[in-house]
């Protein structure tokens, strides 16, 4: 049995996620869209905290909410063209997209609910991983060690940095 606070928190977060997701893709103002995305990301971070993954939640807020959304906003402002924002999406495109998305959701939902037993699992008690442990795991080569992906991601990031420099360089 969960604590009531947890449950209320869950409903609030779920509501925020659902509403803001819908708003993100339906609003015509792209800056608003970025803002709604920020709310969604925050809400997700809250779920991570709720799941006892505080580090992950922190990363989510720092990287996503703090980094990516800011990048989006910059990009939006840089490419801002007055009068182009409010362009209407024509209805066939919208309907087609909606149908496709709904079909996808329906298919997945059907899957979800047909495995309701499995999905109805309760939250079990778990060890809350400290940041120190996470750091050790990241840099270890033992079981549950993630050194290789870590290095791979670092190389990727390096490539992205170089790519970014190359792209941004004035010709």
């Amino acid at each position, binding site marked *: 049995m969960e604590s009531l606070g947890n449950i209320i928190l869950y409903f609030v977060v779920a509501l925020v996620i659902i509403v803001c997701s819908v708003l993100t893709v339906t609003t015509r103002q792209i800056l608003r869209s970025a803002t709604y995305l920020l709310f969604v990301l925050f809400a997700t971070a809250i779920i991570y905290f709720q799941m006892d993954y505080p580090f992950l939640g922190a990363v989510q807020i720092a990287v996503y909410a703090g980094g990516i959304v800011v990048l989006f906003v910059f990009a939006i402002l840089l490419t801002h063209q007055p009068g182009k924002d409010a362009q209407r999406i024509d209805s066939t495109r919208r309907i*087609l997209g909606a149908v*496709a998305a709904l*079909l*996808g959701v329906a*298919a997945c939902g*059907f*899957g979800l609910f047909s495995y309701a037993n499995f999905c109805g699992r309760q939250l079990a008690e778990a060890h809350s991983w400290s940041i120190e442990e996470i750091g050790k795991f990241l840099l270890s080569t033992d079981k549950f060690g993630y050194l290789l992906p870590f290095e791979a991601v670092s190389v990727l990031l390096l490539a992205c940095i170089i790519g970014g420099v190359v792209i941004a360089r004035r010709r």
Partner: protein
Amino acid sequence: MPLSYTIAVIAIPLFMFFFLGLAGVKMGRKLTGWLGVIGMLITTILAYGVALTYFFGTGQGQLAADGARQAVVVFNPDWLSFTKELVVRMGIMLDPIAAMMLIVITTVSMMVHLYSIGYMSDHHGHAEKGYQRYYAFLALFTFSMLGLVVATNLFQIFIFFEMVGVSSYLLIGFYYQSPAAVHASKKAFIVTRLADLFFLLGILILSYYTGTFDFDKLVFGANGANSLEVAQSAISTAGGATFLGCSVTAWALTFIFIGGAGKSAMYPLHIWLPDAMEGPTPVSALIHAATMVVAGVFLVARLFPLYVIEQGAMEIICVVGAFTAFYAAAIACVQSDIKRALAFSTISQIAFMMTSLAVSSADGGLIEIHGGHGLGYMASMFHLFTHAMFKALLFLCAGAIIHAVHSNENSDMHGLHKFMPITSFAFLIGCLAIAGIPPFAGFWSKDEILVACYSKGIGWGIWMSMVAGMTAFYMFRIYFLIFHWKKHEVHTEHAPADQPWTMTLPLIILGLISIIAGFAPAAKLLGWDGKDLHTQLNWTVAGTSVLIACVGIGLAFKMYYKENELPDKLQARFSGLWEAAYRRFYMDELYQFITHKVIFQGICKPIAMFDRGIIDGFFNLLAAATGRAAYGIRRLQNGSIQSYVYVYLVGALALALVTMVCVLI
């Protein structure tokens, strides 16, 4: 003289061809000409030596045990082995007709070589351009023709048939910058080539069934002379195989005759010969009057025993020959171009020879030949000999006239007797000889031909006599038109005159030969089985034929000696007939239609279009279809990420659906 010297007779012209052809360019023009003449002179002397040794000498295997004059093979190496048995050999064989041909070819060729020194020069005695080429080709032709007559097997004859054809092509097209000459040479080659195709087929069939090309297996008997028994057994090896109701050997022999007919300008393959007159006149004398055109006759004579056995083929030859003789004579009567008239006269005379060969038939016992015991064969060969001499004479005279007046047309000549007396006399001798007036050469040979024809049937005899009369008429028509008719009007600064000695000497020599050649002991030497024929003059036939000839001459005299209205009146009266004969009964137009309209436009063009359009088009279509398909597929790769997502989504949903269905079932 050893008979093996024949090799030299063949080899010298071949050497001269290469020598003059390759080294001649570096030498002076006159020098090459005289070198050619000297080479030919040596060849002629050797050829005479060899031929006379063959005819009159003994001890070199000329005479078989039974006294027949047999074929002597002096040289016969393998050249190309098709199979173990079927081998083409390049040999040299002397028999009566080969020896006789050696004399004919070298004599005429010698005269032409000498004559050309003068003819191929302009009025100042400067040699024409291409002199070296001319003499090289003459040597090549002489070589080919000599190789043809001494052939030991059918295939060798075919090979040299081709060679003389090419030499003839090259010489007709000697003035290669004149379109008419090029056209004529092309026509000559292609028509004879068509005939050679049949010759080849004939050889293929005959060699397949008899298993050999060699004459000593096909026609020569144990005594080395023509033998009907051997021919009979050669034919019987075919085992009575038939095709379309006729025996295969009859087909083969007919095809071979067609090959000969092409070279010998028998109707309907005669059309190339008149056009061939575009070549230099000495060439016409050598190739298209005396030697190459009788190759067909020679061929039939070579296979004479086979033809005698296969009477079907023989009948065809007879009919073709008789018709051609008349047909060509009729056309010759109206031609205005001196060389063409002579060309048709040649066709007619060769047809005489053919007919004469073809009137023979064998009795059941194969011992003797009907038709005066092979008289036709002898007469034909004899006529070949005499005709070569007087026709060469006539052509060389014509050359002298053309050289003097620079025209081929009768209308530019007229009344030349005063200007060119030697030429005039020489031409007259030639005309008398061809008309068959005794004692000139033509009388003796033509008389025997007529006798042979009468012995086949009275109708054949009358027909041929009539043609003989026409011969006399048209020859004297030409003679009178050129040398008399009316006074000559001198147009150019040079009055026509007898030509330099190099051109006149051959006329005199040939004129003398034309007078005396008739007394050659042909019956003794040219019997079909190598034996003496013991003929004597049939005065009934001879008398009539002389009478007919005189009538012809008289008619020509009446019409053409003095300028008068009669020819024009007759022409107007029978204008249709005259026009048809003048246009050679439209045979050329017919051929033109067949080659250009039917073959060129009707077959070649559509095939070429089919090739470009359908076949090539198909492959291009294949390529285009592949390209189109590629373009079509490329449309899917449109770069719009959203459509990719749609496609992806559809795929994913489909997969999900499939999974679900599978799970449910």
